[in-house]
């Protein structure tokens, strides 16, 4: 396990190094001069040059990269060009929205999909199964942002139960903060639930056809025990894999959904940063996403082992 951990850490650092190089290169290649975007289209060349100098943009790329890496090694992500605040505090405050949103949407996805998937596998080709499959088909076809707008129309505009968007800080009123995350989490969760439902159903169907299930049945075990202990436990590995992939994908989903619900999260931050060519912020967030994905993969790997003790790490 120790060697495994060491290996993982090494992979983490190598990934980050690669990501930092790639993102630096990409930001060099995409057109759009941050100084011009800040100063607008009327600025004179001298003013532009002055600002570029101030931002250190006049130096060669290699020097800038090395400087950036040196700062990074000291734990400093730099300052945002547009907001003029340290990036780490900017990202930390945004994570207070995005991480709960991601967790909540995963909870929604799992809570909706697993019972539905199990139910439809046990009632295969019956009306209930068809109903659930139609739901998941629709869920797959509907993009999260559209689901979000429909949910706003129903719960905010018509029923006035939940806010149409925006976010109050946790410190101000935790209940209100949670309330404003419900709709966005649900719209992200519904789409994911659709995938997970199909996955659970097919994985369960496969397991339910195994010999040991027949044995368990003939032993006279109760249906509940067969489903939960024998079947589901064995069907869960592919489901966990998908959940892991989805968790990594949540940040990408957050970009769109945070814009629809105007939540001040990391997704919205990176979206605006790209528009403003706030390069240090984009770099910081992409690095963060890389770290999160590596960490999520690690958690999933550990979960495999917990769920299936036969799996070993070399």
């Amino acid at each position: 396990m120790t060697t495994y951990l060491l290996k993982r850490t090494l992979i983490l650092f190598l990934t980050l190094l690669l990501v930092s190089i790639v993102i630096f290169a990409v930001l060099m290649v995409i057109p759009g001069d941050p100084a011009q975007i800040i100063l607008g289209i009327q600025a004179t060349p001298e003013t532009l040059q002055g600002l570029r100098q101030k931002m250190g943009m006049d130096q060669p790329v290699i020097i800038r990269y090395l400087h950036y890496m040196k700062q990074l090694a000291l734990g400093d992500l730099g300052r945002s060009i547009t907001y003029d605040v340290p990036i780490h505090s900017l990202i930390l405050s945004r994570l207070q929205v995005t991480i709960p949103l991601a967790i909540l949407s995963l909870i929604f996805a799992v809570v909706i999909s697993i019972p539905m998937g199990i139910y439809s596998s046990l009632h295969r080709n019956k009306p209930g199964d068809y109903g659930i499959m139609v739901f998941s088909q629709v869920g797959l076809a509907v993009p999260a942002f559209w689901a979000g707008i429909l949910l706003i129309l129903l719960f905010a505009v018509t029923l006035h139960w939940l806010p149409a968007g925006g976010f109050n800080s946790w410190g101000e009123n935790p209940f209100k903060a949670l309330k404003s995350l419900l709709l966005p989490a649900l719209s992200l969760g519904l789409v994911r639930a659709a995938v997970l439902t199909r996955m659970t159903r097919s994985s369960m169907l496969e397991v339910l056809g195994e010999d040991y299930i027949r044995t368990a049945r003939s032993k006279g075990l109760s249906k509940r025990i067969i489903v939960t202990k024998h079947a589901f436990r064995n069907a869960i590995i592919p489901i966990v894999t998908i959940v892991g992939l989805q968790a990594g994908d949540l940040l990408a989903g957050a970009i769109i959904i945070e814009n629809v619900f105007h939540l001040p999260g990391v997704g919205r931050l990176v979206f605006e940063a790209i528009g403003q060519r706030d390069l240090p912020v984009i770099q910081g967030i992409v690095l963060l996403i890389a770290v999160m994905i590596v960490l999520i993969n690690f958690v999933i790997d550990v979960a495999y082992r917990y769920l299936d003790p036969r799996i070993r790490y070399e």
Partner: protein
Amino acid sequence: MRRFLFLGSVFLTIFLLATLSYAQPKPVYGGSLTIAQGVEPPGLDPTTATSAAIPRVVYGNVLEGLVRIGRDGKIVPALAGEYRISKDGKEYTFILKKGVKFHDGKPFDAEDVKFTFERLMDPQITIPNRRYYQDIESVEVADSHTVKFKLKNINSMFLFNLARPDSIIINKQTADRLKTAPVGTGPFKLVEWIRGDRVILAKFEEYHRKGLPYLDKVTFKFIGDPSAQIAGLKAGDVDVIGYDVSPENALLLEKDPKFKVLNGYTTTEVILSTNQTRKPFDDVRVRRAMAHAIDRSALIKGAMSGYGTPIGSHMDPGNPYYIDLTSAYPYHPEKARQLLTEAGYPNGFEAVIKLPERFIYARRTGEIAADMLSQVGIRLKIELTEWGQWIDRVFKNADFDLTVIGHSEPFDIDIYANPKYYFRYDNPKFQETLKKAEMEPDPKLRRDLYVALQKMITEDAVNGFLYVLPSIPTMKKEVMNWWKDYPMTAQDVTEVWIQK
């Protein structure tokens, strides 16, 4: 008799005031207003960055200049109670208002004005619009509340430039906080900027215009998605959407008795920008043909649901020098084809139109214009371009045939005097006339010169002059006294109040 007259006039005044206040509902104090805005300002300093989102939050609300632009587009006093212009037009004397305080408690005086303009002229500070101040020779403090500006030469735009958001007055102690936590003299002070979410302002109790503002709290909420803005308004989270309401949504909300939509104009001229250095657009006949091929009113109907005012030159109808030139090129496809034939393109030609995909109005306008031009044989390939790329390719490097964009800066006809400006219009006569206009002290003669300038670019059909972007602010019907037109880039809420 004299006493009688005096008493009579007093009574008459009282009577008139009474009827006036009867006719108009009386403003109510208090309340909190939430305004939805599409773009979050990149910093709150209107002097070092040019994003229009900045003045739309702070100008007139938090920060003020010596003069400002009133609702009718005219220059009115702000921090300067009055001003005098010397006979030769080179010296401006401003008498500052007394008893004005900054939000940090510091009294406002002539030294602040001097500091403000010396900062704007300081080469160490990146001021994008420094050209507004390039004619200032010196700023002198005559006494604590009198400031004299000496100009190198006559500049008829000087006073107007002082009314721009770039010219807001700040004090030395708080200048370095301008970008993150500005301190001004305005009716509202900054409480908090929750980045990515909202800016919260609160009433400044010591504001110098007595009896103002009416509101206790103002929140600018940054909602990028237009349908989310509308949902916020309908759900009651938002009171006003100040601009950028999509025209079809405005049309729907206008019919809803809970809301009202004001149909005014802005200073944003939407034009079909044409690269004058590229063939075949270097031929004035081709450009005139294009002007005849576009049906402005159909375009406004199609792209903007009928909101928007057609223009015939590069000036908005709110400008005091505006003249109506919309009839210069009536919609006449036959004539367009004839002009194209004369220019050597009887079968038309192919070109590319690059549309900034960030702006819905530009996309739609470009698509419809492309369709209209195809009727006369000009076949356009539409390329949607990301904003950063648009700035880089189209604006900086003039790598384009045609594009559609709104020029939001007020009074910006001077861009046609810059041959390096992206549409690359180089006309020495225009450049000379503009210089003359800017140095003309006589208002009447100056007006004539600006009229001549408008006519010149219309005659050359430099760009397709399409329409002025509508303001269409949309709000709950309880919101009173919102600005209908936007003659300056701002959302001034000083006089806005909420009916109980």
